[in-house]
């Protein structure tokens, strides 16, 4: 089963690579974008038909990219666990029960208990809320800033572009974690500040990606035609340029979510993230867990495995989405 699939894939990839080098970049792109959004093209189609179309494209995605689809399923599960945390977690994540400390995994405590007798599994489930909300918020805000700053930088050019790009260059040249650490140090540890610090770390990359995409779109005939027919800057940006940068933003954001989750875990691990007793995956690996890990290894194994699995899933989903949505960027 594996052989023909890889063979066709290879053929596809070759075709994609050669057409990308020969054909003008604008052409295959427009065609793909039209294909990529059947629902949007349907416009006023009845809701049932639209839902059927959507289900079909999900199925097609699962068939072409089984690993990507599996990652999507893992992440859906993770989001559900986060949303339903109070319902699905077997114990209270913060209630202390010191007589029950350091219980090894058994039938009541599937992943054991920590130094205060708190259930590790429940803390991981509740930790998903923190990790995912930090991830989605930080990446969402960074993407928004990236879209606004990137498109205007590309569209208006001039001094704005020059200054903004210098700032972005500088920010991309410095170690992101160090900057995030210092921001946390200055502002104090809280959930909002973690989101802020990670947003600062990711914004430059979004600005860079959106800008380069917008620069390419700006030169296309339909944008020139729109401007020539008297459309205002706001209209050209909002209706023509921004929608065409969204695919790249979406693809990069999926991978960035994994990075943001590791960043939150790293900050919390260093004691600069979410303050205790709120359960965060990084914080669960710190302090008592680290001190006692030789005797009670489950304290560091389960939270770390969770982070790895979730980040892996985000990376795989990001890769798969890139292959499907953006053939120009397809990995060879």
């Amino acid at each position: 089963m594996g052989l023909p699939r890889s063979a066709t894939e290879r053929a596809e990839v070759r075709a994609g690579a050669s057409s990308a080098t020969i054909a003008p970049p604008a052409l295959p792109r427009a065609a793909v974008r039209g294909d990529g959004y059947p629902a949007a093209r349907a416009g006023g189609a009845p809701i049932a038909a639209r839902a059927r179309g959507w289900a079909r494209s999900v199925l097609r995605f699962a068939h072409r990219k089984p690993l990507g689809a599996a990652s999507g399923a893992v992440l859906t599960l993770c989001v559900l666990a986060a949303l339903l945390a109070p319902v699905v977690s077997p114990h209270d994540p913060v209630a202390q029960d010191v007589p029950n400390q350091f219980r090894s995994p058994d039938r009541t405590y599937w992943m054991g208990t920590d130094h205060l007798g708190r259930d590790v599994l429940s803390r991981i489930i509740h930790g998903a809320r923190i990790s995912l909300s930090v991830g989605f918020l930080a990446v969402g805000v960074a993407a928004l800033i990236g879209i606004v700053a990137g498109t205007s930088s590309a569209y208006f050019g001039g001094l704005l572009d020059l200054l903004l790009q210098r700032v972005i260059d500088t920010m991309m040249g410095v170690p992101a974690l160090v900057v995030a650490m210092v921001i946390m140090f200055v502002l104090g540890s809280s959930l909002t500040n973690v989101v802020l610090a990670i947003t600062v770390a990711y914004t430059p990359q979004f600005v860079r990606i959106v800008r380069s995409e917008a620069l390419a779109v700006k030169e296309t005939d339909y944008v020139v035609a729109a401007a020539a027919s008297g459309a205002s800057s706001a209209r050209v940006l909002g209706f023509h340029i921004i929608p065409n940068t969204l695919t790249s933003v979406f693809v990069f954001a999926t991978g960035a979510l994994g990075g943001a989750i590791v960043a939150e875990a790293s900050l919390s691990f260093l004691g600069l993230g979410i303050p205790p007793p709120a359960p965060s995956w990084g914080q669960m690996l710190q302090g008592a867990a680290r001190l006692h890990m030789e005797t009670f290894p489950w304290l560091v194994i389960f939270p770390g495995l969770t982070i790895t699995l979730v980040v892996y899933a985000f990376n795989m989903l990001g890769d798969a989405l890139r292959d499907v949505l953006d053939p120009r960027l397809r990995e060879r």
Partner: protein
Amino acid sequence: MRVYIAKRVLLFVPTLAIASALVFLVMRVLPGDVALAILVSRETPGVVANEDDITRLRAQLGLADPLPVQYLTWVRSLATGNAGLSLYTRRPVAELIGERLPVTLHLAVYTVLISLFVSIPLGALAAVRQDRWPDYVVRAGTILGLATPGFWIGLIVLLLLVLLFRWVPSPVYYHVWEDARENVSLLVFPAVILAWRFSSYQARMVRANLLEVLRQDYIRTAYSKGLAEPIVVLRHALRNAMLPVLTLIGGELTALMSGTVILENVFNVPGLGDALINAMRQRDYPVVENLLMFYMTFTLTINLVIDLVYAVINPRIRYAE
């Protein structure tokens, strides 16, 4: 090429200016009253900081001046090299950096060496055997390397070392010239863990580039001349595929500086990142501020050097203009 180099070097001045402005913004404008922040955290929660103490500390840190004056004073002290007197040891931060930087550089150099030795052969192997099992193994390994957080792998490695070999990292740091064996045995684990991540980036890059180069006409020509595959791949293709990898290393060194902070913490390595975390714990504002400035200057300089080296060895830039 001269114009390119001159441009790139001249651009470095505004870049440094922006970096210093960003540091100043984060350290002096964002927190509000720094003197108050230092004193309050040191007092027990109920006790209010003494008004005289605040005034004195403010004067000591030069916080009494208006912000533009503060900025200029700070930049001047950076230029003379005696910026950032520690609140505790009264030593300038430059001395601290002189002590800690070599440790971090050791770790960084080990990491880069290991990752280059691993990533180039593996990336090339994956490209040559595309869509067969070596390729799948390399791809799976690299994706895993990108997904696993370094500090967690660090903890697991420590755990295994203790459980299997009863080995604990030495509490004392030895320089290479003092005790090479101790130095390597302390740094090899964090270096290998960091190298896994960085060789994953590099191997993917080498693979992707090599696949592209292998489809070029001159490679087909080389094959049709009857050259053996190893010669075509090693002498003709790999050289061209390697160029973009070099620029990747620039961005990597920046990320490496983040990585060392965390792994120094896990493995008790007394490097620059350890100094930063200690300064934060003591709320030593001047040290944090100037360490941040140093981190930024250091990585920006390395990126500049990499760009220049790239310009020198890449004929397309060398002969342009």
